[in-house]
């Protein structure tokens, strides 16, 4: 079984060099960009030189205390986990119904699911914030979780539907023949088969919720800020906080969210998120 190696042939083409050159240029600049934030977060001060004159870790301690980072991180995780839990709990059964049944009005339901994914968050975020303010829910954890659920729930449904469509209906029929009720079919047959999909959807929602700026920004109050909102507020009011402390916080944010992504990549093959494709077996 020798696999024809496409890349070896690729290296001889000038076109391939252009592509890889472009990728290298992009990554080089990106690395420099990240490095400049990283260096600055350790710098005592850094003005107009290649590198700062002295390094310190004091800004991290500073950021931790001044921003109340412990509280913010706690809120972030709480919000993200609540959104993931609710979105999965509501979304997986809905995806099942959509995958298995054709019914009048299915297109309407699909539209209702697609719109929150397609519309920019600000578009429904502002009316939603207005409504939440009206019911005195804005600024609470409940409000933040509710707002983040709006894009998360359709996302779970859309990701899960193809996963469910792949499961042979005969398996379910067999379970029912053996006397399993709907609840048992779900608990004993479907959920175990769907674990990869559920993990994929859950982790992606987690990453998205941690990164969701607009909605949280519009509905959160001082006690219900997630990390990214706290970070933005600090960065947008320069002069109040030291730039290095803001950078330190940005580094903490990036570490948190890349840890989540690496976790996600361990469970999900990134190319299978949209379309469920079987890996091509080498012939």
């Amino acid at each position, binding site marked *: 079984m020798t696999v024809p190696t496409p890349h070896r042939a690729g290296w001889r083409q000038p076109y391939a060099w252009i592509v890889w050159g472009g990728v290298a240029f992009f990554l080089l600049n990106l690395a420099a960009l990240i490095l400049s934030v990283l260096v600055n977060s350790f710098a005592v001060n850094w003005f107009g030189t290649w590198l700062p004159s002295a390094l310190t870790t004091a800004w991290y301690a500073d950021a931790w205390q001044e921003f109340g980072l412990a509280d913010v991180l706690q809120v972030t995780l709480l919000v993200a986990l609540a959104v993931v839990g609710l979105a999965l709990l509501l979304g997986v*059964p809905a995806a099942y119904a959509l995958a298995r*049944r054709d019914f009048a009005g299915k297109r309407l339901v699909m539209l*209702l699911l697609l719109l*929150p994914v*397609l519309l920019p968050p*600000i578009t429904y975020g502002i009316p*939603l914030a207005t409504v939440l303010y009206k019911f005195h829910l804005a600024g609470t954890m409940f409000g933040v979780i509710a707002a983040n659920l709006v894009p998360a729930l359709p996302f779970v449904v859309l990701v899960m539907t193809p996963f469910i469509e792949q499961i042979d209906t005969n398996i379910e029929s067999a379970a029912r023949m053996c006397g399993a009720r709907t609840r048992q079919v779900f608990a004993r047959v479907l959920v175990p088969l769907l674990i990869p999909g559920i993990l994929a959807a859950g982790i992606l929602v987690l990453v998205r919720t941690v990164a969701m700026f607009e909605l949280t920004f519009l509905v959160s109050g001082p006690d219900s800020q997630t990390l990214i909102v706290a970070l933005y507020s600090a960065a947008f009011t320069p002069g109040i906080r030291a730039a290095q402390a803001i950078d330190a916080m940005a580094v903490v944010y990036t570490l948190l969210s890349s840890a989540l992504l690496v976790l996600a990549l361990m469970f999900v093959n990134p190319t*299978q998120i949209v*379309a469920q494709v079987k890996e091509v077996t080498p012939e």
Partner: protein
Amino acid sequence: MATAQPATLVLRHRLAERGIDRVLLLLIPAVLVLLALFLYPMLYGVGLSLQPRAGGGMLANYQAFFLDSYQSGTIWKTMRLALPAALINVGAAVPIAYRLRGRFRGRRLLTAILVLPVTLGTVLVADGLLRYLGPKGWFNRVLLDLGIVDEPVRLIYNYWGVLFSLLITGFPFAFLLVLSYMSGIDPTLERAAATLGAGPWQRVRHITLPLLAPGLATTFILAFVLAFSVFPSANLVGEPANETRVMAIAAYQAAFEKYDYSMAATIAVLMGVFELLVIALVLLWRGRFYTGTTGGKGS
């Protein structure tokens, strides 16, 4: 009792034939949540936009928006950022994903590296751009030392800073989607074309691209949606008072600086309308292109 049961059974069977049975109950919680948290606020927002704070007719807010060039100019400013950003992201993702479609050592690692910028977050990217591309930043230092430019290039606090930030945060998404669609294309098709004597470029042009086109349209839509709601970066690395005053900023200012929720809802509605307009055009193009050239082969 004895007669009622068969009747309900018959009804149940009839409904089941049309796909309506108890499985659909599973759909209800999700739909209710979306109705309450999405549709109701949206409709409330539309209603609010038709009740101007300053009085006037129902459409007074919309008139005010289009008559004030400082407000209506935001449409063009948003499009000017979002369209090129989405186009460049999708356009750059195609050749890279094409190179990465086969199996080779390091493929997974390279994919992970290209996807990782997703985690950077707008603030770190904005901060990084300010430091790296700033007049004293490494980028300008290299250019100055190499003698390419005489004075620092101005790349932040203007259009370019925001565009770069959109490219960095948007590219991983576009790349991931394109790679996914690319892996969905049966490689034997390309090999078959090669057997029939098609060169590399012909294979790309006549096999891969047509099959990829619907996926590219979808990717473009999602990349455009992502870029359309530029808000943090337009404020942080852009010139939010002028050159990068996008619709999101106008809506935010109306709501939380002028406390004119009616106007804010108007701008939010218009934002949705203009975005959906672009999406509709792309979908229209997608439909024509797909059926027109590849007829039959499912995606």
